[in-house]
């Protein structure tokens, strides 16, 4: 038995020498510094793959959105490259129709998931495009950056959000998008109905009144399919003036710290309870 053990172990020793694959030791050390959340926000599957791509020079340390700036700098120092990286992005929801402002057509009693509800007559919400509020995104978020507020609308914590794309993927109504924090003008509405029809479904819907288009710099905002759309290529022209006259508060100004402000003319929503169903 001892002899057999010796023979087999010597085979292992030989195999280890002969079949050894050289691997850059930096991959391991960089991998150790990465968060190991394997979120995929950088675009490659997993942190180790990102480490390999870093060594190969295809990425810069700053492109990992999860690690803190200090750590990215450490990685950059270790590899002797620039920190680089894109500007910070966060997930934003293009809907503000909580249960206190948006009409509910029917009670939905089925499986408690937005995706399942969408497949049953589009869910119970009056607005076809609006957030169903059943929390698929909250469940999908690996970073606790999303929580459902008391009106059933997901709120993103910009400090915790790492722009990993999970909520964007999971939302059956495609309401999330990853936006650079420098984009301060934002339209939290996707309702394509015109005027009163939109406002009947939701008190904070864009009713395509065109006031923001008139107040903003030329070309910055335009009305597409009864919904204001911001041309972010002209983002440097954006200012608060565009939101001030919006009657429903369907265009908002988001400060860097994540505080959203409506214009002065927006109707005040003081109702805290849900609207009745029907």
């Amino acid at each position: 038995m001892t002899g057999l053990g010796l023979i087999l172990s010597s085979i292992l020793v030989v195999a280890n020498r002969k079949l050894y694959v050289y691997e850059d030791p930096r991959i391991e050390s960089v991998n150790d510094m990465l968060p190991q959340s394997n979120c995929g926000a950088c675009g490659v599957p997993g942190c180790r793959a990102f480490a390999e791509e870093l060594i190969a020079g295809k990425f810069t340390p700053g492109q990992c959105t999860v690690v803190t700036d200090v750590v990215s700098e450490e990685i950059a120092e270790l590899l002797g490259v620039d920190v680089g990286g894109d500007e910070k992005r966060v997930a934003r929801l293009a809907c503000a129709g909580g249960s206190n402002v948006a009409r509910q057509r029917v009670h939905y009693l089925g499986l408690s998931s937005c995706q399942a509800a969408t497949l049953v007559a589009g869910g119970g919400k009056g607005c076809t495009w609006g957030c169903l509020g059943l929390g698929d995104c909250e469940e999908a978020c690996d970073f606790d950056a999303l929580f459902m507020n008391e009106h059933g609308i997901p709120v993103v914590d910009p400090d915790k959000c790492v722009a990993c794309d999970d909520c964007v993927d999971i939302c059956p109504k495609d309401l999330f998008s990853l936006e650079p924090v420098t984009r301060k003008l934002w339209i939290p509405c996707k309702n394509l109905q015109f005027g009163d029809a939109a406002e009947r479904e939701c008190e904070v819907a864009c009713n395509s009144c065109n006031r923001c288009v008139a107040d903003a710099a030329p070309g910055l905002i335009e009305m597409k399919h009864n919904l204001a759309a911001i041309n972010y290529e002209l983002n440097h022209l954006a200012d608060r003036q565009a939101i001030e006259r919006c009657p429903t508060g369907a265009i908002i100004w988001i400060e860097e710290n994540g505080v959203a402000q409506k214009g002065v003319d927006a109707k005040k929503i003081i109702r805290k309870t849900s609207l009745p169903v029907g």
Partner: protein
Amino acid sequence: MNPLRLLRRSFDHGVHPAHLKEQTADLPIQRVPFVNRYLMPLGQHIGAPSRAIVTVGERVRRGQKIADATAFVSTTLHSPVTGWVRKIEGFRSMDGSFAPAIEIEADPYATQQEERGDPLPWQSLSIEEFIAAVQEAGIVGMGGAAFPCHVKFSIPDGLKIRYLLVNGAECEPYLTNDHRLMLERPDDLLQGAEIVRRKIGAEETVIGVEVNKPDAIEILRRHVKPDQSVRIVPLQVKYPQGAEKMLIKSIFDREIPAGLLPRDVEVNVNNVGTIIAIFDYFERAIPLIERIVTVAGPGAAYPANLIVPLGTPVREVLRFCGGLKEETREVIMGGPMMGRPIASLDVPILKGSSGILAFTEAETAGRKEYPCIKCGRCVEACPYFLNPSRLARLSKARMFDEMREYSLMDCVECGCCTFSCPSNIPIVQLIRTGKDDLRNRKETEQ
């Protein structure tokens, strides 16, 4: 009949829901009066949506073509009333999204006579002309799926159809529209079947009817003419006897492998309503502009079997039947097993709407869901030999590759698993979300 022989007229697995057809089985088909507004969604069949060929304000006659097919798997639409086209725009459809539809306002002074041309001389049509004519008539599968009917008739070279199978099983509880059609129009049904059988070159017509409709079996047997080669086959009462693969297994004892179609076992399956629609077009020159709808369920004040022009809002149909009872909580379009709940009574009757069922609190109250106890009842119930509980768990966990491995896409959402689940797990709904995921992934991969 030998009871042993009857026992064999069935398939493996399946469930036995109460059939609950007493409410409407004996009620003759009535015609719903014309209302003032009709809505014809352009995408009410499977396949590419139709393209409107009328303009807003135009006057249309009953039976006039208002939308054209845009592809081979697509079909035409015909105006259900004489009146004016009022709008062509997005309307909220049954699945909750905005989809283009043609709104027609009925002319209150019109006689609403169908625009009848001469019947097509079907005897002399070639198969290609026959297929084109079926598409021109806008005929789709009337059992509920609304799959354009002419597609089924175009048989690729090398395949031959031996049997035309007419599906009169009507296995869904409550629904009695096919039953009434068989009772009231047996001659038309047999003649329609004869037209299709001759055109697709089948040797024999087989009509499968569940034994809970003995009067229909009797009447059809009595009306078969000597020159028609028709066989009426009584089937065991079991759900989903009316699914085409189950029907073929019951009658011909042949199983169709996943991914193949009935034509691969030399069978063409059509619903009773579809055959009647074909009869109406080829013998009376009336395109598909109305269908039979069963209104039933504990919430319906006066259950009925109705001839409803397509596009009639559900609200108007229910108004004709005395409305809904106060305690109604849910309205389902289609049968109780496979139908979809509707979120608004303003949705119109479509080509595929076989029933309007109203349910009260007692039937719809959310039942408490318990964990799966691995009893295997869903596996025993699944007529497609899938493992529903496993598929549901995989779908919940979003394990896409494994879902494919366990043939998630072969599920037809018949509902046997959810029906048999003692833990009240919404298995079908979970599988549906899984299918949605797989479809989305396929799109992004392309």
